[in-house]
């Protein structure tokens, strides 16, 4: 069962979100909820079935799902709520979260602290404005990885991979292992953009050629990719005429970069750094909006999952501390309500501790004139906190009343105070 209000809500159940939720709970947050749009916890790790995760934190070389499982197991023992197969559609700067799923329907939830851990998405063919036709058979490496590792289908037989990022190289090996032919990896830069270990283990060991300073000039084929035309690039990133080569293939995989996924952050009014495309954060991983924190690939793109986990832990601890402070602070505040013949009262909210320092002035206007002596009374339910006599009240004339320091104890008992004007 979902609660209406949480101490900490985490959006995204990748390594960042899982670590944040776990650490928030351990730090003392009471109600913690993780919302994830996939059907299971773990984020992108669930499709990364290769080894290479956890060398820093666990001193072990784990596959992605095994790394994630350690956190999923820990989370399960901590009474943390989860809402899976659910998309967060909107978030406000007041930390109201709107989400929808088949199971929960459309839900609105409030939280004292919010953790953004939505990860990132892949750059697409369109973002690098790749010329040519628009057939089936052009996939981002991550989408192809999902098809192969989660859905159990091969998206092609003969591949060319554009970009020497880690996901592309890992996929080159995976596809080769599945019996496909990877013709080539093309990289526009003069250097490898992924990890050297991946170059050795995924390309060299399988005799997959890597061509630096090369890119795709155009895609050929109307229904399905039939070939791509590659071209060499000079130091100014301009194609060198005469170096074109047609490489027959049925699939082009793109491993051309990741972009933090911050559409929700933007809706919440979080300021974004144009360089990282992620939120500006302080040392607590708090964004420009108080109470909204962020961790993982949503902030900047990581190469190693261990650092993501660390960022998630830090973020979760601070989010919990923020929520705990909010709770305490919240208990100290009383709402001011307009009672009989009072239109409004300013201030709207009063910190109970303020009376320890001085009397507090309330100002208000009445709704109707009363041309005879009246009491202006501040009430806690039926208990009178203080009162003041006036000869008359009129809507055109503001009414003032002090809550004296002597009322400190009476105010401590209240969660709400109302002000009314009654005939004497």
């Amino acid at each position, binding site marked *: 069962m979902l609660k209406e209000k949480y101490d900490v809500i985490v959006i995204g159940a990748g390594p960042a979100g899982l670590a944040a939720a776990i650490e928030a709970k351990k730090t003392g947050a009471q109600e913690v909820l993780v919302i994830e*749009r996939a059907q299971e916890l773990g984020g992108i790790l669930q499709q990364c079935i290769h080894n290479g995760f956890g060398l820093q934190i666990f001193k072990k070389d784990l596959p992605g799902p095994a790394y994630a499982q350690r956190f999923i197991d820990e989370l399960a023992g901590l009474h943390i709520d989860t809402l899976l*197969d659910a*998309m967060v*559609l909107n978030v406000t700067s007041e930390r109201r979260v*709107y989400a*929808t*799923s*088949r*199971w*929960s*329907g*459309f839900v*609105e939830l409030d939280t004292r602290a919010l953790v953004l851990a939505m990860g990132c*998405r*892949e750059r*697409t*063919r*369109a*973002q690098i*404005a790749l*010329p*040519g*036709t*628009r*057939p*089936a058979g052009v*996939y*981002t490496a*991550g*989408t192809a990885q*999902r*098809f*192969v590792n*989660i*859905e*159990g*289908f*091969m*998206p*092609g*037989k003969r591949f060319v991979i554009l970009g020497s990022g880690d996901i592309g190289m890992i996929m080159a090996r995976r596809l080769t292992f*599945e*019996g496909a032919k990877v013709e080539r990896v093309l990289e526009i830069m003069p250097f490898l953009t992924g990890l050297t270990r991946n170059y050795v283990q995924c390309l060299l060991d399988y005799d997959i050629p890597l061509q630096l300073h090369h890119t795709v000039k*155009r*895609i050929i084929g*109307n*229904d*399905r990719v039939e070939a791509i035309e590659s071209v060499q690039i000079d130091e100014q990133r301009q194609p060198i005429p005469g170096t074109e080569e047609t490489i027959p293939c*049925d699939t082009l995989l793109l491993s051309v970069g990741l972009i933090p996924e911050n*559409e929700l952050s*933007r809706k919440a009014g979080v300021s974004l750094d144009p360089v990282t495309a992620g939120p500006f954060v302080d040392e607590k991983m708090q964004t420009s909006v108080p109470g909204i924190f962020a961790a993982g690939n949503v902030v900047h793109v990581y190469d190693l999952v261990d650092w993501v986990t660390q960022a998630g832990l830090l973020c979760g601890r601070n989010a919990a501390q923020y929520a705990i402070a909010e709770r305490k602070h919240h208990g100290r505040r009383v709402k001011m309500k307009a009672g009989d013949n009072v239109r409004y009262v300013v201030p709207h909210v009063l910190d109970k501790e303020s009376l320890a320092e001085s009397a507090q002035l309330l100002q208000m206007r009445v709704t109707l004139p009363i041309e005879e002596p009246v009491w202006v009374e501040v009430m806690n339910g039926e208990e009178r906190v203080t009162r003041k006599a006036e000869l008359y009240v009129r809507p055109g004339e503001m009414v003032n009343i002090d809550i004296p320091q002597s009322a400190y104890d009476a105010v401590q008992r209240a969660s709400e105070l109302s002000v009314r004007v009654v005939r004497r």
Partner: protein
Amino acid sequence: MADKNYDVIIIGAGVVGSMVARFLSRYKLDVLLIEKDSDIGMGASSANTAIIHAGYDPKPGTLKAEMNVVGNQMFDQLAGELNFTFERRGDYVVAIGPEEFAKLESLRQQGLENGVPGMVILNGADVRRREPNINPEVSGALWATTGGICDPFGVVIAAAENAVVNGVTLMTDTAFQDFIMDGKHIVGIKTNRGDFSSRWVVNSAGLYSDVVMHKAGLRPEFKITPRKGEYYVFDKAEITINNVLFPVPSATSKGILVTTTVHGNTIIGPNALEIDDKEDRSITREGLDEIWQGAINLVPSLSLRYSIAEFAGLRPGGNAPCENPDVKYNKDFIIEIPKQVEGLVNLGGIESPGLSSSPAIAVRVVELLKGAGEKLEEKSEWNPIRRARPRFRDMLPTEQKLLIENDPSYGRIICRCENVTEGEIVAEIHAPIPARTYDAIKRRTWLGTGRCQGGFDTPRVVEILARELGVSPLEISKKGKGSEFLVRPTKDEEAE
């Protein structure tokens, strides 16, 4: 020949053929609409600027001018009846510098001659106030209040669906090959799916309208030359130009626009490049550079960093002289019942403003048939209304809540950028004109058109299509046979 005798066969289910089918569905006729592709609306109607032109552009006296102005006026009622998205938000022809400003008045005069109402010339300050992102050197604009934008696939689908619900038969994957003649009478057509007999045939084959009419021995000199137009689409979170901005037109083209879609994305384009290949919708480096240069002349603050898609369309440009010999123009629409053969309604060269003109063309086809002696009795049960299906992202939270309560599959988001739900996808797969490919669903729901370009939704849509159609995921394609997404199961799957 098949036992069934049709009254009318329409060749080609683009916006023109679909609109003709919809207007003919009102009458007691057996109508067959055939389309060579796997879905309707995959030709010229699938990639255009989506503008319902006011009508100041075409040369006075031409069919283009007449159809455009009449068609434009029909769109409010049509959008109301067929429930596609249409917004009459006006358009602007923007003059940069003093010389261009002088041309606005002649454009306005041309509009008046064509019968376009509601045109106003604005000064530079007015334009800057209405579109703060405009080139600061703007000297003024022609504001055409009747210009509009629409969902161009929505128009095709709504018209064809309304036709089908009113009794028209639609056959996709069915290509016209030749006419069956009896003397000079057309009595039927040959297709890849067999022969069909009919008293009338409508040629609305778009890019192939020349090929079709040549088969009947008509207008041998008429030739469609595809003219390619390319576009960039921008992320709506980053760039919002809320107006339809044309440059001052040149002798050959309306120029590169900066405009907005009904879905809120800014788009720029199109260029105009004549090519030979009727299937070449590839995008080119040169074309993209050209539209970029044109666009930043209108709105210098655009940034390519926020481009999320590029695409290209082919205008079915013809070389038909204007019917009126006094008007010197040789790229007019053909809308005729030719004398040389009997039983053909011949349409050709329906390039821009073909989308805007399509309802007027359909009405003209009805009139031509009446003129040729067809009685065209109205069906009492004809229903002009086509209901819209729920669109989750356009609803208020309270409406979304209710929708999900009634059908939980509307609570599962499949397209993360455009917030398209499983419920919407399933509804399109089982609609009167079923969506059976990824692109068919994309055209109907706008799924996969956002910043991740289907990266997230593709595996999920493949799964839903396979489940709903009761076939293997291996059979699911992007746009019909030959464009399947997957080639075989992985080794683990095979082993199981």
